[in-house]
């Protein structure tokens, strides 16, 4: 089961590269923001899987919980800031 968790972690880490491509080449600011949000959500899952790999899930689940809330606050603050700017970006 540990090898399966390791494979799943590597798979999700490879998905980071796809989001990173969208962040670097995204035509608008919003594409970049949504790519960052996707990396944030995948990072929660990677944190939990690392917790299962090290068998310290009781500690890593709290880290993932805090990271999930901070990720949401960051994206919403970014959205409210860009909403005020008038004209196409």
């Amino acid at each position, binding site marked *: *089961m540990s090898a*399966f968790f390791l494979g*799943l972690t590597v*798979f*999700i880490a490879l*998905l980071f590269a*796809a*989001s990173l*491509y*969208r962040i670097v080449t995204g*035509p*608008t600011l*919003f*594409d970049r*923001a*949504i*790519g960052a*949000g*996707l990396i944030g*959500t*995948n990072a*929660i*899952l990677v944190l*939990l*899987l690392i917790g*299962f790999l090290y068998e310290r*899930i*009781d500690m890593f*689940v*709290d880290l*993932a*919980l805090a990271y*999930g*809330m901070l*990720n*949401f606050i960051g*994206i*919403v603050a*970014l*959205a*409210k800031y*860009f*909403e005020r*700017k*008038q*004209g*196409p*970006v």
Partner: protein
Amino acid sequence: MSFVAVIFLLAGAFFLLVSCVGLLRLPDFYTRAHAVGKAETLGSMLILVGLALYNGAALSSLKLFLILAIIAVTNPTATHALTRAAMRSGLKIWRAEGK
């Protein structure tokens, strides 16, 4: 129980892959937000259910379901807030050729 957990984890990994393919391949911001807002939420929830099933009855399983609830509420909300900001800042909606 471990077999059911593996099925949930593999289904979640498939939906995460779908959301990343959508983020790379779809033509404009609104369609990409559609891919990320739904497929990503479903994939994360399936993976969290699989992890909680593997973990068994413990306090950390309860916290895993708390993370599931937080993702289920916040991920579509964040996508909606970004899409509304794009709409109000005047980003054009993509149309197919000749429409």
